[in-house]
């Protein structure tokens, strides 16, 4: 509906983004000597690089390397201290989010920028609403959005408030929003960190189409296999410097990892450790768990010493199961018995006090106090939930605990008193894990714990998970990344539409059969072990 669009353009005060065709000579990005300091921290330390038109240019690096800062600067959300950016040969001065949009630069922020209590539709067209004779045209917007939603594979109630969607669906909403703005330069900062395999597949199809249409795409991710699947060219950032840029064809994952973390790739998934003898055999058993219309008669057992993987896409019921076990969601039927002999926790508080822990999927909404410091975030459970003789909050203990986790999880934070929103996304994620590790939990529920964490730290986290498992704790692990499920877990529970459709040894699946299973509920009827 061109009529509607031009209308929107005028109303918006911003002439709508130039579609790739009307953009004239396609904009290639060239960045020179970009420097960004935050107080003492140097986020970018003189970055240079070019991205050619019509290519997918991946930017990788460990947590805190400066990727997001670089992208935010390109999008005008952050002012650089030094350096220059040129898009399509034109050097940008005083870039603001608005001017960036007008230049056709579209971005999916790592930490999404959605309006939680606005509808999906309002989010898709934020500040670009389509107007018919003065009033917003809901119909026009729905029409306009439908093809994009279909292409990306997002099927939600357009009137549902975005704040209620799981993090994965939120990422898809933000993705659709930027696609609808028809950018000529598309920046994606870990756009699929919470997406399932086939959602990612659809995303890549879109990217290829756009690239072939001459759109420049900058793609940030920690999933190196995927990077190698989609990128034409790869740049590695390290401590705010560009340390490597080359065509994908000339690179191997090993080389990239080496450039990222300075050591060649060590094993991402640690081997299974022998369960310590003194740990008594303990079990978490779930019987006939049901939630009206969301979870149907789910039964399984999880034994100490094994990592139990929960596989399922959004809506499958996995987070519901985790929520129930943590006392955050009330089941309608079914009974659960924990190793401590008791049932479902009455509240999240009693869960925490029984050393039952849940690392939630959405760190910003469910895990962090962004405007408070690392120490207080680490103390979230220990000081906030646990009982204690002393009513006092001892600064010394706070700092000690924080430093312990900063060390163990390699959190890149200048001090325990740094505010969490000043940390990079991956480092924020580590804090959510750290605040639970701090209380030495007994039952550990992990909902996509390694989201946005770099390879080095990821293997470190998996090693820790392995260790605590071996110490005889119960571990349930959910991830949207199938390799993680297959690589880390000993046993796999597959959920589909609220039902448990398979409960077998992890080796019963390979990535293709697992992908098929979570999306269709059909499992390879094979119970005999396969050699892995």
């Amino acid at each position: 509906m061109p009529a509607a669009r031009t209308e929107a353009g005028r109303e918006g005060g911003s002439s709508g983004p130039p579609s790739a065709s009307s953009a004239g000579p396609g904009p290639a990005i060239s960045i020179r000597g970009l420097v960004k300091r935050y107080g003492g921290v140097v986020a970018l330390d003189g970055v240079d690089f070019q991205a050619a038109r019509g290519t997918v240019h991946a930017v990788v690096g460990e947590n805190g390397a400066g990727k997001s800062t670089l992208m935010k600067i390109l999008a005008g959300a952050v002012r650089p201290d030094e350096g220059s950016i040129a898009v399509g040969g034109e050097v940008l001065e005083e870039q603001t989010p608005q001017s960036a949009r007008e230049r056709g630069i579209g971005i999916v922020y790592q930490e999404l920028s959605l309006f939680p209590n606005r509808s999906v539709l309002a989010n898709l067209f934020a500040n670009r609403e389509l107007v018919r004779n003065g009033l917003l045209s809901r119909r026009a917007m729905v029409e306009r959005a439908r093809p994009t939603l279909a292409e990306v594979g997002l099927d939600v109630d357009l009137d549902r408030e975005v704040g209620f969607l799981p993090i994965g669906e939120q990422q898809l909403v933000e993705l659709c929003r930027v696609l609808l703005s028809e950018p000529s330069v598309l920046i994606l900062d870990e756009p699929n960190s919470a997406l399932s395999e086939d959602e990612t597949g659809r995303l890549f199809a879109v990217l290829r189409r756009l690239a072939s249409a001459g759109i420049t795409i900058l793609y940030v991710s920690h999933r190196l296999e995927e990077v190698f699947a989609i990128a034409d060219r790869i740049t590695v950032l390290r401590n705010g410097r560009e340390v490597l840029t080359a065509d994908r064809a000339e690179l191997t994952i090993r080389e990239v990892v080496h450039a990222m973390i300075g050591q060649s790739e060590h094993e991402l998934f640690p081997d299974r450790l022998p369960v310590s003898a003194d740990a008594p055999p303990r079990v978490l058993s779930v019987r006939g768990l049901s939630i009206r219309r969301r979870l149907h008669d789910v039964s399984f057992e999880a034994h100490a010493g094994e990592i139990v993987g929960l596989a399922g896409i959004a809506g499958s019921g996995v987070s519901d199961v985790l929520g129930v076990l943590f006392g955050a969601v009330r089941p309608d039927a079914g009974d659960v018995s924990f190793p401590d002999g008791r049932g479902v926790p009455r509240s999240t508080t009693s869960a925490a006090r029984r050393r039952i822990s849940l690392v939630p999927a959405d760190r910003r909404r469910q895990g962090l106090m962004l405007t408070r410091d690392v120490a207080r975030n680490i103390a979230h459970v220990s000081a906030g939930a646990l009982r204690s003789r002393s009513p006092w909050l001892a600064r010394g203990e706070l700092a000690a605990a924080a430093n312990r986790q900063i060390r163990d999880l390699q959190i890149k934070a200048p001090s325990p008193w740094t505010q969490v929103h000043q940390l990079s996304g991956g480092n924020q994620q580590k804090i959510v894990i750290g605040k639970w590790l701090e209380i030495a939990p007994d039952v550990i529920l992990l909902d996509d714990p390694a989201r946005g964490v770099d390879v080095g730290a990821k293997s470190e986290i998996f090693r820790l998970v392995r260790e605590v498992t071996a110490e005889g704790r119960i571990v349930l692990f959910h991830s949207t990344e199938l390799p993680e499920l297959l690589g880390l877990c000993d046993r796999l529970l597959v959920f589909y539409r609220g039902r448990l459709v398979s409960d077998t040894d992890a080796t019963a699946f390979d990535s293709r059969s697992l992908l098929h299973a979570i999306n269709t509920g059909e499992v390879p009827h094979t119970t005999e072990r396969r050699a892995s």
Partner: protein
Amino acid sequence: MAHVEAQEQSKLSGRVRLGNLTSRIPEELGVFAALVILVTIIGVHNRSFVRPENLLDLIASNSFFGIIALATVFLLALGEIDLSVGWNFNFSAVIAGLAMVHGVNPWLAAGLGVLFGAGLGLVNGLLAVGLQLPVIIVTLGTYSMFQGLSLVVNKSAAVVPPDITGSFFTLANKRIFSLPYVGGVPFLAVVFVALAVVLHVLLHRTRFGYRVLAIGSNAEAARLAGIPLARTRVLVLVLVGTACGFAGSLYVGSFGSVDPASGGQFLLAVVAAVIIGGTPLSGGMGTVIGALIGVLIIATISSGIVFFGIDATWSTFVTGAVIIIAVSVDQAVKWQRRRNAERRASRTT
């Protein structure tokens, strides 16, 4: 906080997924139910309360703080709150009145009052944006400034236009048309309800309204989306100011005078109406229709006190108790509706 989850869920709002088309169960159902129950109870006790004429008079005589409440929804949707509305109303009315005293044509004077109110709103806006302060802090100051200046100009005497026989005054007190079974409808009531509809459309069907809600929902995201924060903020405060000025001019028209104390008590009633109506302080959400109903609930309660002939000593307590009951009814309906919504949603999936 417990109510946070409640809010969370209430965000599930009335809309339920039916394939791709959506059926809207209005947010305002709860408060509306509360209102109906109140009116019924009083009507049963004393028929003359539910006489259409009386109900229309009730709406008309509460339209002054009511109009301000309607506009205040935008401010709460922005996550802000304006303490100065009552004295803005008073000051604007005084200015309009003085203009009439000095022989300005009442219609012009009324227009002047509206503009003046808008001007005071602009002052609030510029202070808030300029000093980068929340509106509540700024209006804490302008609250007293407007009151004080109004006192200075009205010399703390009632401002009484010499001739209140003109068309402006007659219209303000007129029943402009009459409906079957209902009888004459007061001009004020018509204006009030019409304004509610207009502001509802402005909030939910225009880009301006969307910007307000977006900012209230996530200011940082709004900035990144290129929404002009400062300008929108100022505009909303001007809108609220205009409503104050408008209500003020209407007041002069219908009362033919302004007392120095007029409007001084508005603040609490305005806030009450808006939040009882279902607009949270937290921003990002707002319902003008809810505010309209909130105003009527407050009006009905105070009127009910009279109709029940409740002794003056008890009236205050009863008022408070009934407010609690009303909001409880609202909550009850919300819960009920949420359950239904889920049931229907599940049937379609």
